[in-house]
């Protein structure tokens, strides 16, 4: 079982990202859960969402305490919250950042495996909006392969209808541009 924690700000679409991944996994015949950090929704405030994906039936309703994967949608969050909190030893943190690996490690004190992509620029250029949730799914795919690209695209088609194409383009570009460190 893989456990994922997404960090974002209220309104950035972190919950939607979690939903898309879970639905894609379920469409592939796997088991999955996606859920928000339970509570009132506050636009702009740091929020989290969670995903579990497994080949076997998932028998837990615990919160996610020790994620295998952390996805950070907002470039400003790593300096506000400890994004690596509880991360498994071989876990990976996927960041939306324009910084290099060295800069990220120095700035945020992260020692874990990293995947980096400048999702702000991609989202601004492709979507014309500073909404990075679908863009960051490209980075998630590149870094982990937690679901197949096809299943995720199908889930996006169903969810977004006529704006799906743009979001898929952003996802593809992020997939190509994401740098995964050793």
């Amino acid at each position, binding site marked *: 079982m893989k456990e994922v924690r997404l960090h974002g700000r209220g309104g950035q679409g972190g919950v939607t990202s979690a939903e898309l991944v879970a639905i894609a996994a*379920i469409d592939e015949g796997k088991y999955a*859960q*996606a*859920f928000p950090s*339970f*509570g009132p929704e506050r636009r702009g405030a740091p929020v989290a969402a969670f995903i579990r994906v497994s080949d076997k039936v998932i*028998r*837990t*309703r*615990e919160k996610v305490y020790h994620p295998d994967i952390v996805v950070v949608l907002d470039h400003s969050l790593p300096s506000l919250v400890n994004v690596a909190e509880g991360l498994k030893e071989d876990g990976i943190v996927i960041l939306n950042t324009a910084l290099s690996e060295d800069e990220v490690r120095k700035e945020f004190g992260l020692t874990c495996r990293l995947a980096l992509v400048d999702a702000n620029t991609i989202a601004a250029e492709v979507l014309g909006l500073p909404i990075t949730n679908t863009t960051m799914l490209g980075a998630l795919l590149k870094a982990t392969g937690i679901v197949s690209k096809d299943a995720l695209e199908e889930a996006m088609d169903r969810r977004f209808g006529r704006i799906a194409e743009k979001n898929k383009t952003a996802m593809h570009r992020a997939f190509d541009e994401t740098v995964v460190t050793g």
Partner: protein
Amino acid sequence: MAKRVGIEVSIAIAEAAKLARSEVIPAYPITPQTHIVEHLSEFVASGELDAEFIPVESEHAAMSCCCGSSAAGARTFTSSSSQGLSLMSEILYIPSTMRLPIVMVVANRALSAPISIWNDHQDIMVQRDIGWIQTFAENGQEAFDLTLHAFRVAEDRRVSLPMIVNIDGFTLSHVIEPIEILSQEEVDGYLPPFKPRYKLDPKKPITMGPVGIPEVYTEAKMAHSEAIKASKRVIIKAWQEFADMFGRQYNPVETYRCEDADVMLVTMGSISETAMTAVDKMREAGQQVGLVRIRLWRPFPSQEFRRAAGKAKVLAVIDRCLPPGAVCGPVGAELRSLFYKVPGSPKIFSFVAGLGGRDVTVERFEEIVDKARAYAKKRPRELFEVIGVREK
């Protein structure tokens, strides 16, 4: 054909109420039930569901409308939670003795104060004695299935009682997970149209809800009490038919790895799944631990529970409700009554856990089992203990 989809549990419940061809839905939104009625209102607005959606001014009005529509012979669905359910209290006792088969999904949530929108079972324990049939769902699939089952049982002319399906707020209501959604044909095959025994009909007038003078009141309540007891057979039969048709078997009480278990955890609702994982872990470490899950809470399945758990030495009951000043938590108290003076019956301890959204983790279950074992050796002063509470 049924289709396995990734779907939010609340939406799956709304689908179930739609597939059941609900005719009247009086409802008032409240967190964490909101998504259920929100989706139903969308189904009605889009014409996907031919029903009256009544956006009432309060839960008190919601349940009053439910009584009226059910009395008029319409298949009636609503949903509520917490403070909203409490606001319904005055009305909740009415449709049950009046034998009106309303179906309600309750997204279980804590009660104020302090204000909490998060999950526990205090809201429904307040309503323990309203005389409705009550089930608890463990996961999203069960929430969907039990909603359909509720219509089938409630409206059965031998039962004709209102029914509540309890689902844990947020922990179930807000989770996306794989759920097999039955087709309209499949649901129609399981759930016949609602044909009430009596209804308000201008062509054949009757009076519902008259005064019950002291010479009559006890008999009316006794008739209700016997009706809910007798409903157990229909509840089980409707589950059996569900299993025959769709392959998923439900029982009033379920056991997990209880063979040779000396300590058994007792749970209701979605923490049962985490408890299974905890039992697996403790079994791997060589402990003889099992799990008993109560799915049917009212009428309480006494025989089934005794059969399931009677051989345990210790029952560690999880109560998701803290009753101040009481002798024991409600589930613990129920089981203590059930086993009172039964020779060789297990020792029973109640552990209050998971209040107001506090997570009940695998480690908590391990702690509970350890404590229950220790208490069985030395009788504790109190019959219940609040687990995971900070002292300072």
